[in-house]
């Protein structure tokens, strides 16, 4: 029973990790929580669904298109809304991101309606039973794909020139600029990459539950930024671990507690972490400047 919940939690958790990575990278370079990030994941799910179901294209091309669309969306958002206020108080950026969140969630409602849509199975799910624990090929696919993507991201950040530039920008934007790094390009790149990961995460959630709806951005977004806080804002490994923990906590809480309480678990975790260790598991100390 518990092992079963661990498997389910792990599946959910890796999708949260992908979303959390975007939150965390954006926090790293611009020091604010981009509340529209969950909505980008939602848009990604919708674009993939529309292309797959509405336009009857293959699933893989649909996903690629969704990733591309989200990347363009993320970069546009940054150029239009966040770049002009980089030096303003961060609360201003938070409000702009909430504005974008309203625009995206309502925009999707206008285009595709307010009702939930069904996501048909993309592969014939094969169910395995090992030692009394059942899992299906969709779950396996989600976990394996997420782990591969996270591994590639680690390589990108630690082994490539652009990764180094990204880390430098996160540590000190102005100094990185003086060292000849094109800050605007790095920030755009961060938004593009984060949005692509968000799209993948949104599609995975839609496939896993077989459904998608306009307010899912807010729902999974909350899990995503809670995962970031849990792991430590600005930390890449923190976002990965935080996401997986979030999935496990939610899944186990669902087993042992009434369902109403389960919805509150993410927020309880959020508040507890902030009270006990605001810097999260892997974060730098952030309470005092």
């Amino acid at each position: 029973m518990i092992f079963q919940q661990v498997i389910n939690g792990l599946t959910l958790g890796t999708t949260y990790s992908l979303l959390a990575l975007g939150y965390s990278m954006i926090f790293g370079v611009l020091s604010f929580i981009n509340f529209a990030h969950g909505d980008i994941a939602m848009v990604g799910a919708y674009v993939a669904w529309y292309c797959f179901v509405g336009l009857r294209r293959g699933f893989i091309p649909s996903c690629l298109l969704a990733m591309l669309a989200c990347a363009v969306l993320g970069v546009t958002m940054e150029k239009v809304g966040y770049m002009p206020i980089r030096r303003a108080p961060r609360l201003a950026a938070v409000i702009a991101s909430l504005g974008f969140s309203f625009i995206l969630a309502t925009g999707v409602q206008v285009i595709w309606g307010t009702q939930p849509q069904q996501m048909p199975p993309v592969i014939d799910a094969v169910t395995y039973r090992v030692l009394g624990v059942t899992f299906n090929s969709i779950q396996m696919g989600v976990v394996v794909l997420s782990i591969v993507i996270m591994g590639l991201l680690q390589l990108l950040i630690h082994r490539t020139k652009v990764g180094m530039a990204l880390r430098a920008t996160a540590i000190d934007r102005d100094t990185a600029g003086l060292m000849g790094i094109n800050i605007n390009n790095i920030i755009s790149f961060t938004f593009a990459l984060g949005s692509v990961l968000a799209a993948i995460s949104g599609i995975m959630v839609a496939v896993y539950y077989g459904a998608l709806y306009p307010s899912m951005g807010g729902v999974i977004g909350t899990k995503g930024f809670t995962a970031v806080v849990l792991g430590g804002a600005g930390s890449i490994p923190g976002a990965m671990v935080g996401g997986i923990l979030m999935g496990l906590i939610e899944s186990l809480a669902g087993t042992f507690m009434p369902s109403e309480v389960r919805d509150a678990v993410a927020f309880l975790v959020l508040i507890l972490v902030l009270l006990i260790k605001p810097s999260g598991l892997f974060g730098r100390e952030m309470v005092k400047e």
Partner: protein
Amino acid sequence: MSTVRRFWPILGLLVWAVLPAVVKDPYVIHMLFMVTMFSILAVSLNIAVGYTGLSNLSHATFFGIGAYVAALLSIKTGASFLITLLAGGLVALGFGLLLGLPTLRLKGFYLALVTIGFGQIIRLTELNWISLTNGPMGIPGIPTARLAGYEFTPVAFNYYALVILLLEIEAVRRISDSRIGRALMAIKNDEIVANALGVNITYYKVLAFALSSLFAGMAGSIYAHYVTFVSPDSFTMADSVSILCMVILGGSGTLLGPVIGAVALVVIPELLRFASLYRMIFVGAAMVIGILVREGGLGQTIKEAIGRFGASLHREVKA
């Protein structure tokens, strides 16, 4: 203060005071009441956000707490509206202390996240503690306010809310122009220096947060008696966000800026009501554009662009 700077606020107050008495349209009376209500909320949030620099994304939650307290108290005990005004305010203040005491040492966005979490937990409590709150169905049949045997009309509610708003503005004015106000602003500017100058950071942060919650709770009580129905959907995070926008776009840390923000952000979405579904797109766009104008110099950029366009026209005409 010079006479010129006093002119507009006094004119505004006159219009505000006269309108409910002369307008006959119940819809306009209702809108006026909502403007006053949100002004009370924005001015109170400004104490925490504008003067002290504390991020709070759950102000509507305190508004809701005040409304629920007023609803339950007046239904179960028949308490008068002035009692529920105080009780709503004080219970909200209590929750403000509960949230503030352990969390106010957190910086910027961490505090914002805690307040979001707090708001959601209170909302889930309202939804699920059915024996107390009647869950998502809400609490209907709240007695309206009554004075000397007369029931308050919507017009009377307008004046009731306006009086509370004016008292609140005067309180904020007196606080901001005092040793306490300077301590709050010092915390916003530089906590380390404020501490070194003998300002007790925790005390003043909690004070600001508590005052902010107190007025929100009072607004909740007024609202509960006015609409006679409360439900969890009346006090959402979207409302919190919108109150925060009123403060930031109107002018955080100024006395009357939040009132201007409240007028604009209540009236503009109302004017867009015809667009129904599209409305939130416009609201979102207004938030982004508002921030760009206030913090990103968008107004200046547009002015310059128009200036350049004008200059090029001028050159063409000459040539």
